[in-house]
């Protein structure tokens, strides 16, 4: 769930740190640099408009791109959200726990229908990235694992077929 920048207090208080998305590994490393450049353009703070989350905007400029896999990613795998809704961690899910590929780490509650969050590889739970019952978005990183075996690559729970679908009709 990406949030807009909100009231930026100063030019150093740039949007980069405000969006939850920036905490994600998949976001671009040049994100903060871009935000800084934008901040340079608008050095005077955009002030709050209504109640703290007014239309102070991030911008295409700051559009995230997937970053190339870094060396440490080879040992790190992320279990991501398969759906939209509150995250319910499994009972056994705790830091240091050993899991096997395909294990159920928890569920995301899609209007009462639990959607399974599964371990993408054998490994050890290094971090649980969101609180219990916190609402998460599709693809959001939920659990970080250190890979047990030596095989490389990250994995996500996404990856359905992508068939073109028309939106506009008139």
């Amino acid at each position, binding site marked *: 769930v990406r949030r807009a920048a909100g009231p930026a207090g100063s030019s150093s208080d740039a949007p980069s740190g405000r969006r939850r998305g920036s905490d994600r590994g998949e976001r671009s490393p040049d994100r903060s640099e871009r935000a800084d450049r934008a901040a340079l353009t608008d050095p005077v703070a955009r002030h709050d408009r209504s109640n703290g989350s007014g239309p102070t905007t991030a911008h295409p400029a700051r559009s995230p791109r997937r970053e190339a896999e870094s060396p440490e990613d080879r040992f790190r795998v992320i279990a991501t959200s398969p759906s939209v809704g509150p995250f319910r961690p499994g009972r056994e899910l705790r830091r240091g726990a050993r899991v096997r590929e395909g294990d159920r780490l928890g569920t995301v509650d*899609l209007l009462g229908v639990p959607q399974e969050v599964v371990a993408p590889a054998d490994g050890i739970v290094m971090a649980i990235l969101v609180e219990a019952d916190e609402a998460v978005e599709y693809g959001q990183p939920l659990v970080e694992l250190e890979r047990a075996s030596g095989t490389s690559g990250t994995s996500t729970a996404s990856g359905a077929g992508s068939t073109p*679908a028309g*939106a*506009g009709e008139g």
Partner: protein
Amino acid sequence: MFDRILIANRGEIALRILRACRTMGIEAVVAYSEADRDTLAAQLADEAICIGPADARRSYLSAPALISAALATGCDAIHPGYGFLSEDAAFAEAVRAHDIVFVGPPADVLERFASKDATRRLLAAHGLPTIPGSGIVRDELDALEQAEAIGYPVLIKPSAGGGGKGMRMVRTPRELEGSLAVCRSEAKAAFGDDSVYLEKWLDENRHVEVQVAVDHFGRGVHLGERDCSVQRRHQKILEEAPTPALDPASRTELCERAIRAIVAAGYENVGTLEFLVDRDGRFYFIEINCRIQVEHPVTEVLTGIDMVATQIRIAAGEPLGFGQSDVTSRGHAIEFRINADDPEHDFRPSAGTIERLVVPGGPGVRWDGHVYAGYDVPPYYDSLLGKLVVWGADRTAAIARARAALDEMLIDGLPTNLAIHRALVESDVFVDGRMTTNLLDRVGPGAFLAGVAAP
């Protein structure tokens, strides 16, 4: 009024809804698929939430994902845009069941107007002329009898369809026999419903539609008509108003009969009644679109009325706030749908990165587009990059503005259909106001371009 609206759509209409929210002081949450993270609306939103993968069936067409996203982000309303779930009564009902307001007609109204056949009969009963046609055909024998009564050629149309899909024209009883089963199975595959009906085939038609807005209290106004006769394969590519097909008295009659009928039939919120106008200026009601229309800016530019804001206010239960006499129209407007369609490959939709974008500006020029330099146009959805809308004091002035604006427009990095628009505004048939819905298909866009380029 709402505090927070979930925008359950993408592309330019997501941006348009976001702009309406901004001006109304409503927070905008954009629901986006993984392929749409970089779209302008997602970037500008107060909050953006990823609802699924690129595949629309698991994102923009997933009612649970959208409703769950609205709940997760604390939205009190969902705007469905156009296409996708915008006219889906079951979705509207599910939204309501979660105490969220669906920005559009209430579910029962959507239900009432879901069947084209039933809608035609309902509005015919309220005084709108319809194309001579059948009810749902029972079987082949019934079809042959009804076709005989209507007179050939007739069009076989799926009852649940839209956008021109699955229609077939037949000229003889024999052709009807040969096509009926095919049409049924196509309709079943496309819409999950094999009901078809017959309609008299009218050649050389114009497509003219009437924009209406009706509030919860049954107070309705029309906002004039739009002419959408420039089509390719039943897809509109250019819309204008006022229509050059009808004189002012006929336009008034059309609009007034449309609003009277639709109010009487119990419609609610903004909607569009589509009519076919034949060579002699007779009009026949075809269908209604129970949502905001792609071409709504044409009406906005003429009337100064914000159609999306109006739609949101009606959904919030507010009275319309203006009457028919407050709706005044000034000048002439033309909208060009700028699509990533490749003219060298029969205008098939393309994808790619926008390398450079220079949008025209100045007097009488409006641009509604969600793309920017550096944006990757994904291959998963429709090919609309933006809508160029021009205004002039009269049709001649609007065409002159259109020529200049289309010439200024620069999109680099992927093919677009700009060439067809540039040819249209130079062509005698458009300049003289003689476009009919089948003209581009009959001539072929390639031949049309060549014909205008070297007359």
